[in-house]
């Protein structure tokens, strides 16, 4: 029998808002095993790994490493005990070189002096040994996401960890990069490492992993060996029912172009052209999806349309009005609603009540004000209607938003933005990190509002399934430009999208067709 590397036993964690993130969770990882930890968003995977990596404390439970009971004080302690983690959002310093990042914290050299040559040599040796090819002298800022991940892996491996945690490693990768990662992971497995692979993509799990622990609502809902894995069993364990695709695709009846983006560019602080001469439009009644590897200018486009970021060049026209020189409030009044990618920073004030959060964009709206005062009655009714219509689970409208779950916070934001009277919705990662139920509710709403009310939606998402299922027209961004357009999304698959996202294939302007 394989040697047991890691064992977690009876882990229970309750957050200070009373949310039970983990309840009595146990699982083991053996030497030379890739163990999948799967479950919906919010099922408790990340919390469990944070406990293992010393980022969070748990109230009950034990952790054993190679049979010895351990307590992880902090990440440094965890690494010293042989547990390394590659975070979903990389923890690298962009302005340092690959070698400097790899040795950060264990810098070689006499005394306080940093020996760069040895650092580069260390990186090269590790790179050779683990077959993770990187250029030690490149700046992290300049390398691709796939390479950054390799740097993260090297960072953990060079510190001599035996157990590697990978938190949704494929979320930011193209299908081709995913292939490469899998080869590397299998390689590590051969060398006796234990790998915990967190994901909610079933096909990946079935391909890569030897066993899987499924979490649901913070509890273990099942343990499966590779031979018993099939999509149906897994998905039933994950959601407690079989997944049905909620959106019935039908043809959009489009109207005129209500959002026009013409020759827009954005240059960032360090002079890098993030968005490069982009032109496209969104017509009434359609959902335009933008896919692409993160960091290729999608986010900047959404921020420029909503006025959070000033554009360097070009023009954006909303319902016939050019937005140059207008402030965010004026842009909102032209008919823009915005679901931001970063819901805790932009989307809400977490210490304030649901009521105040819903009111934030209506403080100058004649519907809800009486002179200098807020019309409490009208607003109260509106808030109650929102809570009911959008099924926000809460005790009262006065509860602070931080008490709600991620999905319910997103519902508050969606409720506010959808009912704001706008006819264009900029939905930037609207379902990232939230549960399937809320995600499908948001999908249905986006679909309903375009079909029934003639809204135009710009959907930016890194979830390829989401953009493929929802979009009437699909754009792919690469290097700040529109690399491809698909007008019939039923004929698209992720392999095809990946080729354009990586720049392996290119579309000519004729192939791309009209961008409106």
């Amino acid at each position: 029998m394989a040697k047991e590397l890691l064992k977690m036993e009876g882990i229970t964690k309750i957050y200070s808002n009373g949310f039970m993130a983990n309840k009595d969770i146990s699982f083991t990882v053996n030497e030379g095993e890739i163990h999948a930890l799967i479950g919906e968003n919010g099922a408790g995977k990340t919390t469990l790994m944070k406990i293992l990596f010393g980022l969070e404390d748990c109230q009950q439970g034990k952790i054993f490493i190679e049979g010895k009971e351990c307590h992880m004080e902090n990440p440094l302690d965890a690494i010293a005990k042989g547990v390394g983690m590659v975070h979903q959002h990389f923890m690298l310093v962009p302005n340092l070189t690959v070698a400097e990042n790899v040795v950060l914290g264990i810098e070689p050299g006499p005394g306080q002096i940093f020996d760069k040559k040895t650092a580069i040599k260390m990186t090269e040796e590790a790179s050779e040994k683990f077959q993770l090819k990187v250029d030690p002298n490149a700046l992290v800022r300049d390398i691709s996401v796939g390479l950054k991940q390799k740097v993260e892996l090297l960072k953990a491996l060079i510190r001599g960890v035996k157990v590697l945690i990978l938190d949704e490693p494929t979320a930011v990768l193209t299908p081709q990069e995913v292939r490469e990662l899998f080869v590397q992971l299998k390689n590590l497995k051969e060398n006796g490492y234990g790998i915990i692979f967190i994901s909610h993509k079933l096909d990946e799990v079935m391909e890569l992993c030897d066993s899987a622990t499924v979490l649901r609502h913070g509890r273990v809902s099942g343990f499966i060996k590779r031979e018993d894995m099939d999509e149906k069993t897994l998905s039933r364990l994950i959601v407690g029912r079989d997944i049905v695709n909620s959106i019935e695709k039908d043809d959009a009846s489009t109207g005129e172009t209500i959002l026009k983006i013409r020759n827009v560019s954005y240059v960032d602080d360090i002079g890098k052209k993030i968005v490069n001469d982009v032109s496209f439009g969104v017509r009434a009644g359609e959902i335009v999806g933008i896919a692409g590897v993160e960091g290729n200018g999608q986010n900047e486009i959404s921020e420029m349309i909503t006025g959070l970021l000033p554009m360097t060049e070009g023009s954006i026209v909303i319902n016939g009005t050019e937005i140059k020189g207008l402030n965010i409030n004026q842009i909102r009044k032209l008919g823009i609603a915005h679901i931001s990618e970063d819901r805790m920073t932009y989307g809400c004030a977490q210490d304030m009540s649901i009521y105040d959060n819903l009111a934030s964009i209506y403080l100058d709206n004649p519907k809800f004000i009486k002179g200098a005062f807020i019309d409490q009655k009208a607003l109260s009714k509106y808030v109650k209607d929102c809570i009911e219509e959008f099924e926000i689970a809460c005790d009262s409208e006065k509860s602070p938003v931080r008490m709600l779950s991620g999905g319910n916070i997103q519902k508050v934001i969606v409720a506010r933005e959808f009912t704001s009277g706008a006819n264009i919705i900029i939905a930037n990662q609207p379902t990232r990190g939230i549960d399937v139920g809320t995600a499908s509710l948001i999908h249905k709403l986006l679909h309903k509002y375009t079909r029934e009310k003639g809204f135009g939606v710009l959907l930016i998402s890194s979830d390829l399934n989401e953009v493929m299922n929802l979009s009437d027209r699909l754009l792919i961004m690469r290097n700040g430009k529109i690399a491809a357009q698909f007008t019939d999304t039923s004929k698209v698959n992720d392999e095809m999208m990946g080729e354009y996202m990586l720049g392996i294939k290119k579309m000519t302007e004729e192939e791309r067709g009209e961008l409106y």
Partner: protein
Amino acid sequence: MKKVQRVEAIFELLRVVLGLLVAYCITLVLIVITSDVSAGEVIQNFVLGPFTTPRRFGQLMGKFIPYVLGGCGMCFIYGCGRFNLIGEGIVNFAPAVACIVLFNTPIFDGIPWILGVAILLIICCAVGGALAMVPAIGREKLKVSEMVTSIIMNYMLLYLSLWLLKMFFTDRGQAFLCSPMYPDNGKFFQLISGTNLHAGIFISIIGWVIACLMYDRMRIGTKIRICGSNGMFAKYSGLNTTKVILIAQLIGGLYAGAAACVDAFGMYTRYQYSTLTNIGMDALIVAVIARKKPIYIPLAAFVLAYVRTSAVVLNLSSNIPIEFVNMMQAVLILFIAAQNFLKKSKDKVIYKMSMENEKQEKKGEVVA
């Protein structure tokens, strides 16, 4: 989740009450240890002192009146996330400007009391509002720390007020630096004669009601709270954050001006400030104790006024220096401002509660 909210509320209250008690006990023990005063005497003077005579209680109320106004103002400044401490300088400077009008112009000749007091109040508020805008605009337009500017300005304003006093309205017949006696239509009369409880309290009550309405019911209050809670969210929602933050500090300045007015023309018979009064800083303490909520300001103002008066009473009736008691305030603020005080016990209670919920749910399932 409803239960969790209740636990949070209970612990919030506990934190303040316990913080007060701990600070209080520490001071008492220290006083008893370090001085030759007996414990009984300390308790009599320090704990009960302010309530023993009408005069002492009036003294407490005399402090309470400006604290309420200043505290309300600080709620707005602090609530929008800026630390503009200009209130201190306003307390000295705004009444000095009002005194010039009072003594050097004929406006006050023969006008009724209510009008005279209204003019004083308007001048003080206008000066306060204008002064508060200096550090505020510096911060929003030039990115200079409003805290540094306002603290420096406080000293400037102190010496400017003294200069105004010496140049324009000093009473040369007195042995100390002061203005002539205020005329009857230029001061707040005593409600109970022989005490410091003066008519300024009506201004405090009105000011407090307006502050509560503004903070919770009016658009500007909500905007200020949103800006203070999450500036990025405010921007995203289309609020003009710069404008809102400036307005918040303007309101704070107006309130500081009102506090200056009731203190200078209520507590004293002449303008006689020769040092900073500390009312501006106390207002910040009041706002911190009240957790930035105007509704709790009177309670917080009373607590602070009580502590301050006890210190004076103890000082007068024994040999314990007043500075000693001021230390207690430091301990008090430490406990109240400390977000994580009692956090572990709170987390434990929440943990237990969740586990019990869990059990009950399970029982329910079994029955079902």
